[in-house]
């Protein structure tokens, strides 16, 4: 979930009203835009806001959050209008970018008044948009430049990796594009996006000064924004047109909410066949019209609302109204509300305006009969028996590692469900048996009183080519007893009692299993099928786990014993 640090003074300034600087009240207000206060420190002027909606990139800045709140707080009604002045820059798109990074959208914001806090805020917004909405710069990436240092028109071109060099942001020497991918931290991080192509994207001005190497890095000279910068060129490149255009709007509007005036850019495309047009003008702050069905709204919300009331609620939510009639409302969706994909998104806004806590909940007595999963009764019976036999139930992770499953159990490695992206070395695969979890548990409790008798009834995951996930889960019961006299006899008594109480005939046969002591173990047979193993744990295993007392254990596959026969 995106989190933003804002200045509370700035927050109030942008809202245009004074609020009660009370944490709970702020939380209530922020909930209208699906956000909450993570931290509020009035003294240091820090308000940390967490935005729960990952599909509302318009909220990821102090400008955006206040823009979203103004109508709810009745500071203004409907959306705020934004204007763009006539184009002052031409951008020529070269052939050859179609398969690399085809789209570019630009705006120029003039007469800005910036300070360090604001610049920091914009950099954070840019970073969040690049990461999340731009899918780690794969889909879109943003560049900001000091417009006064640039000589239009701009050229967006595809060039050979070694033909051009410039000083990238944060460096003091020139690097070629290939060198940037090898040496610059951003090149190393994002290089994979362009590396597969023969040519790389590059943005230059008419004097051949390089603005940036999208989506990797800006130029050190042109791409530096300071509190002295008055006029900014915003540039977004990307692989999908709408997302690129939306990103440009989100950045431009955040700048405009602070100060300044927007000017357009003309984008000249080289290939009508691919781009479907030869000229584009950006940015486009126009609203979209979405038709909202009154009956659908009333039905989904369970509220009897008139078209007029629905329109009023939408205005409160910051939407505009184009037209109302008896059956529908034509809603003006402002350009920054990129989350609106379907009329249900507007219906939710109606509900939020109405107030969730003003809606009366109802509980319908639907004629349904509840039931547990079919295995549950038997699972609970088995657990009850184990408890009755004096064993403590434990709960362990199913994520583990092969050292635990095999090496420390004195077993040969087996194929299990391994993770491609483990987070920590102790959790790299799913367990295929439970006993190692119990040994691990005991190893952490050696200072406590003995006897220690524990069990777990849980799932294990096995490979299985016959299923659509190429694996299946099974229920297993594993039990260990450890104390100075723990023995085969003791654990065999437990298994005998368990099966007797479950009314299951069983037998024991010789087997070899290197986790147990030779001659002191057996496989458990039910219905002529091997369903588990019991025996005395091998001293090698005890050593591995640093257990000081003998231990005896069993593990039974319950799917084979109970559920498949029931």
């Amino acid at each position: 979930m995106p989190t933003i640090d804002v200045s509370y003074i700035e927050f109030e300034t942008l809202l245009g009203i004074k609020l009660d600087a009370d944490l709970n009240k702020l939380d209530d207000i922020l909930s209208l835009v699906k956000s909450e206060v993570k931290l509020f420190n009035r003294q240091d002027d820090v308000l940390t806001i967490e935005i729960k909606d990952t599909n509302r990139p318009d909220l990821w800045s102090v400008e955006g959050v206040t823009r979203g709140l103004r109508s709810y707080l009745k500071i203004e009604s409907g959306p705020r209008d934004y204007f763009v002045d006539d184009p002052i820059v031409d951008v020529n798109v070269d052939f050859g970018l179609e398969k690399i990074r085809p789209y570019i959208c630009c705006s120029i914001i003039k007469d800005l008044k910036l300070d360090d806090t604001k610049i920091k805020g914009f950099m954070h917004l840019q970073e969040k948009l690049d990461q999340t909405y731009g899918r780690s710069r794969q889909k879109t990436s943003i560049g900001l430049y000091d417009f006064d240092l640039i000589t239009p028109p701009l050229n967006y071109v595809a060039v050979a990796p070694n033909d051009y060099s410039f000083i990238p942001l944060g460096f003091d020497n020139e690097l070629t594009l290939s060198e940037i991918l090898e040496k610059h931290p951003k090149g190393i991080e994002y290089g994979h996006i362009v590396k597969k192509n023969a040519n790389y994207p590059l943005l230059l001005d008419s004097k051949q000064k390089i603005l940036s190497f999208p989506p990797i890095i800006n130029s050190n000279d042109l791409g530096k924004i300071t509190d002295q910068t008055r006029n900014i060129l915003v540039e977004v490149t990307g692989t999908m047109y709408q997302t690129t255009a939306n990103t440009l709007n989100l950045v431009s509007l955040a700048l405009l909410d602070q100060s300044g005036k927007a000017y357009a850019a003309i984008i000249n495309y080289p290939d009508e066949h691919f781009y479907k047009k030869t000229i584009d003008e950006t940015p486009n702050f126009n609203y979209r019209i979405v038709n909202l069905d009154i009956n659908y709204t009333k039905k989904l919300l369970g509220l009897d609302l008139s078209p007029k009331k629905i329109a009023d609620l939408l205005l409160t939510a910051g939407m505009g109204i184009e037209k109302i009639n008896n059956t529908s409302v034509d809603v003006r969706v402002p350009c920054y509300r990129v989350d609106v994909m379907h009329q249900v998104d507007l219906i939710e806004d109606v509900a939020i305006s109405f107030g969730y806590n003003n809606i009366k909940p109802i509980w319908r007595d639907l004629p349904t009969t509840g039931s547990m999963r079919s295995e549950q009764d038997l699972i609970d019976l088995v657990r009850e028996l184990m408890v009755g036999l004096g064993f403590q139930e434990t709960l362990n992770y199913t994520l583990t590692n092969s050292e635990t499953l095999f090496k420390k159990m004195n077993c040969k490695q087996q194929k299990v469900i391994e993770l491609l992206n483990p987070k920590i070395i102790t959790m790299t695969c799913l367990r295929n048996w439970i006993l190692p979890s119990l040994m691990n548990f005991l190893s952490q409790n050696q200072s406590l009183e003995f006897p220690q008798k524990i069990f777990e009834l849980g799932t294990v995951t096995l490979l299985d080519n016959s299923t659509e996930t190429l694996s299946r889960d099974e229920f297993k019961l594993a039990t260990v007893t450890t104390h100075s006299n723990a023995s085969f006899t003791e654990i065999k008594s437990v298994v005998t009692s368990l099966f007797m109480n479950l009314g299951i005939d069983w037998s024991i046969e010789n087997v070899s299993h290197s986790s147990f002591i030779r001659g002191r173990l057996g496989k458990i047979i039910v219905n002529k099928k091997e369903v588990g193993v019991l025996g005395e744990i091998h001293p090698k295993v005890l050593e591995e786990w640093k257990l000081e007392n003998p231990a005896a254990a069993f593990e039974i596959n319950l799917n084979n014993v109970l559920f498949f026969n029931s």
Partner: protein
Amino acid sequence: MTTVDKISRVFEITKLGIETLRNSNLIQDKITQLTPNLILSGKWKNFQLQEYNIQAPVTNVWCGKKHPYMRFLEEVRTKLVTLGFNEMTGSSVELSFFNFDALYTPQDHPAREIFGIYQVKDPQFGNINKYQSTLQKVKATHENGWKTGSTGWDYNYSKKEARRLILRGHGTCLSARTLLSKNFEVPCKYFSIARCYRPEVVDKTHLSEFNQVEGIVVDEKLTLRDLLGVLARFAIEVAGADEVRFKPDYFPFTEPSVELSAFKKGYGWIEFGGSGIFRPEVTMPLDVDVPVIAWGLGIDRLFMMKSGLTDIREIFSQDLDWLRRKEVI
């Protein structure tokens, strides 16, 4: 080290002394342990049973017990069944298709990247042949909205990505499977208690393996008011709440979405659940044409409060002493 000299002294009572004591009827032989032999032979009558110091400390007896969290889940399960819910089950390894695609989470969504979900190393891709026609509809919905009335997500959908095997990140994949299975009659109610996995940095408030209680309610007449009603009922029945409050929430697969907070005396407010009405982009490709309420309960937090735990890792506590001493009420 200090050394102590050991001195033993032996005192004996003379034969005459014993005789005198016996005849005096004042003192009998005292015994500590009553034996079967003494009982059967009636000889116990000749002896006096030693009185104990009842204040003396005794050794601990540790009884077998169910795990407190498992017992808590049993209670939750029973309550949900009483409320008319049927339990759904499924496997820990899941197709991305059910965990994400069918729930209208785009394939380039950050939650699907390696830091958002555990991917299986080998085999990497599962089998989705059974769901070809649904796959087509889901693909069209993601790309351009299909006939749902949505704009879609504006990207190129990959059928291969839908087959990617992952460890399920939430229990909602089971609801998607249930809706697709058509093995239900309207109205119906389902729930699941599912072990879920996410590559989180494990700390006081995050586990990378945890349980989720989730489910759906399906009926033609359902509205947002019913959704609030279901949540309020859970807050009262499951959390024993005195008061409930609703806030806007976000999930890619529901709209409207609601967060539930429950107030309980002695505990304060806790965020107890999230829910919403499935988006048409979820239900229509699954051929479901009635409203579906999807809900999830934050039972971990409720359990922690009830058990006085402050660190979520203690749910999977490896501390036998804590389990032994934990009271059952």
